[in-house]
C-alpha cells in the first residue's frame, strides 16, 4: 500500500483512536496513519498498542495535524521515523521501544521541521537504533520540551545527536534521564538550550568514534546554554569534552553559556575531561568535578582564539 496502512484520513475534523491494538500494518508512507495534506484537525490517540508495523518512511504521517498521544505503546516497529510532523505533537505517559530505522533520513523517533512544537511528558524511549548520523529526535526551526522522561539505549551508528539533533531550535529539558547513548546525546547548532535537573550517564561507542567524537552535549554557535542541577557520569569521548563541548566559530559576545550546580564524575576524553569551551562567554559556577581525566585539562579546557587581540597589542 502506498499511503495509510490502516487509516487514511482526509476529512477536516477531529480524530480519536482509543483502547485498541494495531499490528502488522504496512504502507510506504504512514504505515499506520496517513493524514491528507493540509489536514488541520486534532488527532488524539489514547491507550493504543502499536506492534510490528512497518513501512519505508513513517509510522504516522501527521502532516499539519496537532497530535496528542497518551498512555500508548509503540513496540518493535520498523520505519524510518515514528512520526513525521509539521505542527505539534504531545507525547504523554507513552513508550516507544525496540524501534529500528533503516534509511538515511534523520529523526528516527520524530522528524519535526518548520515551526513544530514537540512535547514529551512522563514518557519512555528505549532501544532505538538509527543507522545515520543525525538525531533520533530531529528538529529544525522547532521547539522541544522534554519533561520527566527517560531515554535509554538510543543509538546513532555515526555522529551527532543520538537522542536529539537541534538546528536553529529551542530545547527545554527538565527532570529527565538519558543513559547509554552513542555519539552526541544532544547535538545542537544555533539553538537555545535549557537543561534542568537531568541525568546524562554512560556513553557508548559507535563506528565513527575515532573521527568525530566531541561532547555528550555538543553546542556549536548556540545563543544561550543553561545547564543546572544536572549530572554527567561515566561519559567517554575520543576527542574533546566528554560531557559538554561548546564552540563558537564566529565569536559573538551575545552568545553565553552557564553551567551551575552540576556534578561531573568519572568522565574522560583526549582533551577536556568534562567541559571544553572555545570562544564563548561562559560561567561555570558551583559545580563538582571529581575523578575525571584527559591528556590536557582533566576537568575543564578553556580555549580561545585571541590572535586578533594579540596582533593589536
Amino acid at each position, binding site marked *: 500500500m502506498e499511503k495509510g496502512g490502516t487509516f487514511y484520513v482526509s476529512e477536516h475534523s477531529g480524530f480519536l483512536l482509543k483502547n485498541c491494538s494495531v499490528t502488522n500494518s504496512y504502507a510506504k508512507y504512514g504505515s499506520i496513519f496517513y493524514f491528507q495534506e493540509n489536514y488541520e484537525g486534532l488527532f488524539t490517540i489514547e491507550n493504543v498498542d502499536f506492534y510490528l508495523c512497518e513501512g519505508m518512511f513513517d509510522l504516522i504521517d501527521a502532516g499539519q495535524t496537532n497530535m496528542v498521544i497518551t498512555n500508548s505503546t509503540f513496540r518493535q516497529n520498523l520505519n524510518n521515523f515514528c512520526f513525521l510532523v509539521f505542527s505539534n505533537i504531545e507525547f504523554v505517559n507513552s513508550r516507544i521501544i525496540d524501534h529500528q530505522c533503516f534509511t538515511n533520513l534523520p529523526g528516527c523517533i520524530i522528524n519535526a521541521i518548520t515551526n513544530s512544537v514537540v512535547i514529551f511528558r512522563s514518557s519512555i524511549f528505549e532501544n532505538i537504533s538509527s543507522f545515520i548520523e543525525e538525531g533520533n529526535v530531529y528538529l529544525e526551526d522547532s521547539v522541544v520540551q522534554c519533561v520527566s522522561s527517560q531515554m535509554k539505549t538510543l543509538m546513532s551508528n555515526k555522529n551527532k545527536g543520538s537522542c536529539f539533533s537541534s538546528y536553529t531550535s529551542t530545547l527545554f529539558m527538565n527532570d529527565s534521564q538519558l543513559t547509554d547513548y552513542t555519539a552526541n546525546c544532544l547535538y545542537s547548532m544555533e539553538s537555545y538550550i535549557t537543561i534542568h535537573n537531568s541525568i546524562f550517564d554512560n556513553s557508548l561507542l559507535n563506528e565513527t568514534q575515532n573521527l568525530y567524537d566531541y561532547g555528550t552535549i555538543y553546542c556549536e554557535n548556540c545563543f544561550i546554554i543553561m545547564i543546572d542541577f544536572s549530572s554527567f557520569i561515566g561519559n567517554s569521548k575520543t576527542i574533546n569534552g566528554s560531557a559538554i563541548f561548546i564552540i*563558537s566559530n564566529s*565569536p559573538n559576545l551575545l552568545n553565553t553559556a552557564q553551567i551551575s550546580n552540576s556534578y561531573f564524575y568519572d568522565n574522560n576524553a583526549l*582533551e*577536556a*575531561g568534562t567541559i571544553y*569551551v572555545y*570562544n*564563548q*562567554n*561562559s*560561567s*561555570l*559556577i*558551583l*559545580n*563538582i*568535578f*571529581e*575523578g*575525571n*581525566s*584527559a*591528556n*590536557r*585539562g*582533566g*576537568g*575543564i*579546557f*578553556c*580555549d*580561545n*582564539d*585571541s590572535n586578533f587581540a594579540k596582533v593589536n597589542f
Partner: protein
Amino acid sequence: MNILISSNIFNSNVAFTEGGAVKWNDENPTFIDNTFLNNSALYGADIASFPIRIILKCWPSDDNESISLPSIDDILWNKFFVS
C-alpha cells in the same frame, strides 16, 4: 571572551600531561573561590596555561638551586618599550 570559574570543587581529576583540573589557552579565565583537592598532572596539578615563564635549572648541580628568568611580558616590555 570571558570565562568565569567560580565556587567549584575539583577533586581527584587527572591530566596525563597538563592541567589536572583546568587547562586554559590564550585568555586567563577568572577564578574565584574554587577548591582544588588531589588533582594531578605532569605540569600544573590544578591549573595549567600556555608557557609564560622559563625556569632554568642548573644541571648537574649539587644543591638543586633554581634560577628564575623574567616573564615573557617583562622581556617584551624591555624589548619594545625601553630604549
